[in-house]
């Protein structure tokens, strides 16, 4: 069978680089592929944070003062900002995880997977805007509000 070859010729394979750029044969990923990448990255980051977080919480068994001292770090501006990042990562991982489950178990999941990717983006923004506001409120007031 020579269907592939003739199709490639018909598509103008002579100018390879130019043709692939114009006609999109250069794979730039698909929303589903990028959400798979993000799912891995957010998962690994969250797992590493969990390691640190269980150990810092374990300080409640050392003494109240030790625990309070370490927990103060979480209230500093930069770490507070990192917490917004953590919540954003976990929220994406949760939403995309639900999408994966719907693709696996819901009869309409596979055909709606791309639509669900966009829904995730919208839900993420809608939750993160007020979420980040309340998480950073105190830090912003201390830094810029003068109280």
């Amino acid at each position: 069978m020579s269907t592939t070859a003739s199709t490639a010729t018909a598509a103008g394979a002579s100018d390879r680089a130019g043709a692939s750029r114009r006609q999109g044969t250069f794979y730039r990923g698909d929303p589903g592929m990028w959400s798979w990448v993000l799912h891995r990255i957010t998962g690994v980051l969250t797992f590493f944070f969990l390691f640190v977080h269980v150990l810092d919480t374990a300080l409640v068994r050392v003494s109240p003062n030790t625990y309070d001292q370490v927990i103060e770090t979480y209230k500093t501006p930069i770490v507070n900002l990192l917490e917004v990042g953590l919540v954003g990562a976990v929220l994406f991982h949760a939403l995309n995880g639900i999408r994966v489950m719907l693709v696996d178990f819901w009869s309409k999941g596979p055909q709606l997977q791309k639509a669900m990717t966009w829904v995730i983006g919208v839900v993420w923004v809608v939750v993160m805007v007020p979420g980040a506001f309340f998480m950073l409120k105190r830090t912003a007031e201390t830094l810029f509000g003068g109280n």
Partner: protein
Amino acid sequence: MADLALANPRTPKRPAARRSNFELYSWLFMRISGLALVILVLGHLLIMNVLDGGVHRINWGFVAGRWASPFWQFWDLAMLWLAEIHGGNGLRTIIDDYARKDSTRFWLKILLYVSMVLILAVGTMVIFTFDPNMPAN
């Protein structure tokens, strides 16, 4: 063409039960635990980071107050075990995907499993042996 000696799938000499269903159960576990973790973790993040001043109100007394209730003790225990195993299983998959040498894969997994046992043991111990009457120092 070289002779390709592929055994017939139904050849009796072929070992029948050399595979287990471990990967199937691990796949299923990721979904079941994931569903529970959506509630447990997002609830935890909402309470600890967003509501009522968020992280700024957390101190030893706050933790003591929460763990006075068996409900939150159970919540945190369930979250600890499910998140650690869910995350550990995820990392196991990632190690399998990206480690190029068997020895790298072996040692990364040993490191992973040791860290999982450590975190599960420390976390569980802390939840069960927390002393609300501990002196400040």
